[in-house]
């Protein structure tokens, strides 16, 4: 059993294993399910993620009509460009947006750790899978790396926007993805933990202020930011940059910031972007629709 990141890294180092191996072992102990079955279940979650990415880049629109089609725009822009530099970065941003647009359009997603932040991890992992030409079986272990980080954050702090703001949702997702990216690239458990801490540090204080209370604005672009931030943190950690504040203290800081955040910035749609004149007009336009309308009609405030 590991209760915090320190214990997780120590256990991995002492037994000369990866973080994902520790997570799989703990899941086996907790549920009594075999390693093969647990791995197969995770591979299925990855398939859901890839399906959502694929659906999103073809273009979807949210039910409210407020968002959508941006992933398609990003995907086609990227294809048109001859410049192939930063391809992982560009793909991660595109796929994160794609997944969150699918969520907003009532498509099927894998909540990682929540529905509102479901684009970050698929964005990073699907982009890396393409870059390194890995099979699904080869990529699946790193979902356990991400899961181990999320498990610690969820149990010692929070992952819900209503509890800790967006830093708890997209911030956690970004930290999880950063650690996964490090292990995937061959980094050590301690480098993965540094990437986690750097990614979360960069997201501290992020408010949850969704327009009209819907999981769309700013959630979709925030997921893109979470994915690129994860890659930034992973790159820094692999290069040897360490988190100046110890890993678990960063998680505790996120929790304390969340607790002291005013409720207007915790998913109530009362503050921030939701409270702007345009945010309020969107709210009236979307939630004030006449009864019986169930189409994806373009609603403009």
């Amino acid at each position, binding site marked *: 059993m590991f209760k915090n990141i320190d214990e997780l890294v120590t256990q991995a180092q002492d037994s000369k294993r990866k973080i994902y191996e520790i*997570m799989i072992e*703990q*899941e086996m102990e*907790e*549920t009594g399910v075999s390693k093969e079955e*647990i791995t197969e*279940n*995770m591979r299925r*979650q990855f398939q*859901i993620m890839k399906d959502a990415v694929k659906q999103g880049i073809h273009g979807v629109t*949210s*039910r*409210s009509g407020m968002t959508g089609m941006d992933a398609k725009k990003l995907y086609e822009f990227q294809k048109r460009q001859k410049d192939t530099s930063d391809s992982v970065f560009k793909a991660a941003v595109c796929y994160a947006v794609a997944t969150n647009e*699918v*969520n*907003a*359009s*009532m*498509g*099927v*997603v*894998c*909540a*990682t*750790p*929540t*529905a*509102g932040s*479901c684009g970050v*991890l698929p964005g990073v992992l699907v982009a890396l899978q393409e870059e390194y030409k890995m099979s699904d079986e080869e990529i699946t272990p790193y*979902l*356990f790396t*991400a*899961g*181990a980080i*999320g*498990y610690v954050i*969820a*149990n010692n702090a929070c*992952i819900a926007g209503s509890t800790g703001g967006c830093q708890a949702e997209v911030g956690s997702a970004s930290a*999880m993805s950063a650690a996964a990216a490090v292990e995937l690239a061959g980094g050590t458990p301690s480098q993965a933990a540094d990437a986690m801490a750097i990614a979360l540090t960069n997201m501290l204080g992020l408010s949850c202020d969704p327009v*009209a*209370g*819907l*999981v*769309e604005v700013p959630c979709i672009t925030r997921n893109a930011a979470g994915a690129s931030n994860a890659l930034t943190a992973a790159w820094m950690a692999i290069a040897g940059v360490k988190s100046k504040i110890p890993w678990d203290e960063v998680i505790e800081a996120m929790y304390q910031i969340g607790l002291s955040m005013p409720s207007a910035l915790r998913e109530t749609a009362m503050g921030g972007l939701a409270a702007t004149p345009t945010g309020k007009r969107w709210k009236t336009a*979307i*939630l004030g*629709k006449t*009864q*019986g*309308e*169930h189409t994806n009609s373009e609603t403009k405030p």
Partner: protein
Amino acid sequence: MKYKSVFDIIGPVMIGPSSSHTAGPVRIGQVARNIFGKEPDEIGVHFYGSFAKTYRGHATDVAVIGGVLGFSTDDARVKNSISIAEKKGIKIKFFEEEAIVDHPNTVRIDLKAGRETMEIVGVSIGGGAIQITELDGFALKLSGENPALLIFHKDAYGAVADVTKILTEHRINIGHMEVSRLEKGCTALMVIETDQVVNNKIQEEISIGKNIKKLILLNT
């Protein structure tokens, strides 16, 4: 530890966009359908509290109908549930209620099939979890996560003992149980959540009891 499994973090798989406003309402619709036991030809959905204000934007309406059609929380068909229901000839009506309720995310579902009707109230308590709080005017607490027996019976002495005796004989353990009635001496509702699945044979044995009016078996 609040979260025990890695699949609480990498999961669940669900239709978007929100666990409390989409996944929860699908579950309430599903339980309503299971209790009713058949496809209705009329569905009335009454939204209360925050549901009444935001159901359109959050697609809570589509979610409830999807549940009533028997779709699960990760079924892509939920998105098109209203048009699917309309194609089947099911009449649907939505109501925005102003009455004050205990929980902000409350929905009442009226189902009708021929001359049979049922009224059920459910709340979405967060993270996709739900509770059924009322059935045909009777108060109850049902999560829909465990097998359950819903028994309408005559409010008379021995009615509860008759049922629990049969469960004892079949080694069925009761996890939660409650009895509520509208009026003394009339009909009462007994709700029994069990750890083990109650099979049809046990169901029949209970049904023939002298005080039993109607029995609904809910297996998850």
